[in-house]
């Protein structure tokens, strides 16, 4: 029973990270109807930038902020100068473009920083703690992870539900042509959407690195899990991303704990295939209009 609780808690902590990456995928899907396969590689890149800042300044929080800013900038550049060219073309073009960006980032980053595995600092201990004699399976860093992701989710909810910028972003996502006719500067909002999504992804990168370490393809498996979580949630729903992330985190934790760690990646793919067969529109979407 104790083991089950431990697996549940660690599953939740891991699930929050998948949820953050899933949210990034969902934000881009909503804005541009593109699955961004480079999301993981972008997060890996911003994490390397964070590490460079941390080494230069000896301050974790400056590195954290650096990764967020790098995420905003990289996302905006990716949309404005790459994705813009394929947004109105066949969906496959966009898929190939994001795969290309993924390959380029995973090739360029080791050219700059080397390909060796690096440690990445955590602002809080990553060891499980004891509080008043009771063993807690969650480390302080796990709690930090959960708190940060929940804060990001809340911020997105506030942005989309209660601000005029969020309303314009929703209008753009639902009906870009009509939004244009209403005076919404759609191009800028798409750039901003990619920037915000990549920022969200960069948070996932920062939260993964202390435990999974940092190397040029350290986010590949996380991308698969995050993508599965996003599909589980319906690709269109930020709440779905959160629930999907937690579901995948828990499922993989139980699979890893009871069946063996080697089966985690396969487990995620089995879940993905299962969702696509049983409920292809996801759990949180009423009408699905999926192009890829």
């Amino acid at each position: 029973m104790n083991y089950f609780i431990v697996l549940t808690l660690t599953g939740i902590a891991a699930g929050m990270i998948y949820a953050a990456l899933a949210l990034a995928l969902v934000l881009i899907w909503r804005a541009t109807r593109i699955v961004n396969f480079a999301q993981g590689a972008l997060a890996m890149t911003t994490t390397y930038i964070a590490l460079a800042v941390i080494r230069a300044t000896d301050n974790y929080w400056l590195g954290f902020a650096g990764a967020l800013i790098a995420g905003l900038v990289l996302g905006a550049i990716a949309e404005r100068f790459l994705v813009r060219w394929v947004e109105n073309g066949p969906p496959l073009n966009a898929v190939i473009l994001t795969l290309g960006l993924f390959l380029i980032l995973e090739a360029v980053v080791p050219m700059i920083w080397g390909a060796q595995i690096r440690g990445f600092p955590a602002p809080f201990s990553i060891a499980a703690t004891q509080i008043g004699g009771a063993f807690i399976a969650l480390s302080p860093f796990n709690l930090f992870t959960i708190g940060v992701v929940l804060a990001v989710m809340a911020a997105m909810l506030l942005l989309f539900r209660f601000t005029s910028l969020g309303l314009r972003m929703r209008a753009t996502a639902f009906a870009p042509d009509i939004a244009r006719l209403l005076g919404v500067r759609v191009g800028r909002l798409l750039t901003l959407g990619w920037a915000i999504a990549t920022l969200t992804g960069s948070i996932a990168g920062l939260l993964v690195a202390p435990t999974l370490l940092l190397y040029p393809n350290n986010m590949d498996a996380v991308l698969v899990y995050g993508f599965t979580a996003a599909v589980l949630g319906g690709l269109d729903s930020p709440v779905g991303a959160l629930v999907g992330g937690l579901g995948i985190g828990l499922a993989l934790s139980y699979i890893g704990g009871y069946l063996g760690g080697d089966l985690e990646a396969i487990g995620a793919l089995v879940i993905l295939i299962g969702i696509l067969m049983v409920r292809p529109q996801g759990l949180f979407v009423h009408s699905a209009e999926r192009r890829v």
Partner: protein
Amino acid sequence: MLEVEDLHVSYGGVTALDGVNISVPTHGITAVLGPNGAGKSTLLKSIAGLIRPRAGRVTYNGRALIGMAPEEIVRLGVSMVPEGGGVIRELTVEENLRVAQMWHRNGGDARKAIDEVMAMFPPLAARRHNAAHSLSGGERQMLAVGRALVSRAELLLLDEPSLGLAPKFVALIMQTVRKLCAERGISVLLVEQNARSALSIADKAVLLSAGRTVAARSAGELAKNEELWHAYLGY
């Protein structure tokens, strides 16, 4: 107010507009009539910036519109209501209105403008917080016209507002357009398949056929001109 000169539009080699000339005066309703495929909707889309013409000129109060993005053209006061209303189905009625006025950036005025639209169209007030996909065809047209009003449009481009509507809604929409024109000094360029109802409110009418302007008369004259009527409108 709006001048369209020698406009040519083609879709991948197929000519849709082949030298259209239209002049829309300040104040008043100009109806664009013509059979299916005459290029009526293409004309409106070209003015609104949704289609890039091959040649020709569109000027609004002296400013060239061709090459401008649709979102910038709206900001000059030219507001298009696409066929079927073009409401954003997933947003609520009020959100649809708010999106249309956001770029004005003055909050107090904005609320008042939305309340005015609600007063003008009571069915919308009842559904203020419902998603727009729950609206009937007539209500969508009301919302679309209301949206153009809150954006303080000076020139309204209406694409087939009567399409698919019950006769009583057609009458209501036409009367509302007429009223807005008179009360607020809005100019309207109205594209209609339903020539009779369009002529009933229009001041001026332009007849398109096969992408060309074939006649531009006062609405009263065109209504009485049996030759043109039979040749181009078919009944």
